[in-house]
């Protein structure tokens, strides 16, 4: 079957197997599912991180407020005496 003119093989074009499109579709669905589960992981992680950050912020703001009130109380005590 070698092409006698220049020595290159003459190869018949063949059709791809029928199952290939089904295989590609299921692979694409799998990829979509993987992407979705990754999205869920990222959203879950972001939620946890934001809850922690929010808690830290709330606690630190409470910490800042406490000495100020104490100082106010002390000054009022001094004023009264």
């Amino acid at each position: 079957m070698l092409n006698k003119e220049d020595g290159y093989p003459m190869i018949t074009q063949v059709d791809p197997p029928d199952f290939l499109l089904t295989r590609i579709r299921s692979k694409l669905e799998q990829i979509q599912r993987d992407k979705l589960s990754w999205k869920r992981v990222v959203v879950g992680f972001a939620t946890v991180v934001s809850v922690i950050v929010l808690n830290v912020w709330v606690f630190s703001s409470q910490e800042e407020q406490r000495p100020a009130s104490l100082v106010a109380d002390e000054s009022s005590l001094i004023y009264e005496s």
Partner: protein
Amino acid sequence: MTNQTTFDEIYYKFAKRVYNLALNYCGNSEDAEEITQDTFIAVHESLSDFRQESQLSTWITRIAIHKSIDCLRKKKRKRWLSFFDQHQENSLPHFNHPGVQLEHQEEVANFFQGLNQLPEQQKTALVLTKIECLKMTEVAEIMGISAKAVESLVARGKMNLEKKLNLRGINNAQNDK
């Protein structure tokens, strides 16, 4: 028109071309199926990024060539690793081309073994011009080089291939004695 319909249309239009190119690149149907699958997954993933600077067929052929090269590199790596592991199955790509008649398989397999020893660019130029019979300008667009550069790659590839085939012929003749 939904994305799925567009994808199916693209598949039906180009699957035969991609599958045959993969077959002519790697020489066996299992790898060609995998390359076709990977090519169309890549097409599906980046269809929205396709900027229509080139024809769709050129773009898809380019992806198919990259996937074929990746597949062969993976095989070579596996073969190299199996050198250290004697128990591992030898993953040498066997020749199984459904487009070649059974009585010519050995002859064409010999040709493909010579072709596989060429540098990637020379091999690609030869496969596209001499086996796929594409026009020089089309090959130049696919490979992203000038038509002159393709001509030179084909000429060098032809010369190297002849050398490899002659060498193989001599070796085979010596083995037959």
